[in-house]
């Protein structure tokens, strides 16, 4: 699946997007955030307050218990500040 990052999550990780292949036991959004946080210092920094990070599956907001199976694109970003 494709992971995409926005705002300071993108800056901290140092990438706009990448292909990721989490192991099968990573089933939910919450588990995916925890798995990503363990991928290196830049990821640990981006996800150091994991509860703050918002996640969207295929361009729709997703809760922490949402299942990621079948997702094509998962986005990670800070709380939104539009308008």
């Amino acid at each position, binding site marked *: 699946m494709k992971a995409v990052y926005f705002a300071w999550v993108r800056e901290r990780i140092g990438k706009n997007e990448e292909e990721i292949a989490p192991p099968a036991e990573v089933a939910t959004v919450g588990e995916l955030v925890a798995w990503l946080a363990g991928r290196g210092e830049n990821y640990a920094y981006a996800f150091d307050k994991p509860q703050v990070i918002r996640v969207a599956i295929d361009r729709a907001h997703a809760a922490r218990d949402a299942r990621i199976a079948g997702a094509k694109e998962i986005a990670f970003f800070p709380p939104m500040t539009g*308008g």
Partner: protein
Amino acid sequence: MGAVRVQAEDFDAAAEGRALTAGRREIGALASFVGLCRDEGGRLAALEIEHYPGMAEAEIARAVAEAEARWLLYGITVVHRFGTLRPGDQIVYVGVAAAHRGEAFAAAEMLMDFLKTRAPFWKRATCIDGAVEGWVEAKADDDAQAERWGEL
């Protein structure tokens, strides 16, 4: 029915309003809101607005559909800009046409509350002195405002 645009270009609020009401005889109210980039007491040099292409349009369209389900409306236009904006620049336009002002005001307010908290846009501020800059933090007030409308 609603029109949603996410664009770098500026917009003409008066023209957007006219487009909503042109040739319509049943419209008695047009609520038109424009959000602008303020200078934060002279400190702000620019705002950079980042967005999630595709999701931004989809989320705004979802809010427009929700407004249409809640009130009898005769037209909605939402325009949100991205890119580098300076103090005085327009950021967002929300126009709602209805028979009476109550629905028009309420729908415009709901749409703005939604844009603040659910539409994937992020602002980064650059200050006049150039040294201080950072991502604008989400406000708890905005979340509280949005919660008035219930689950969107």
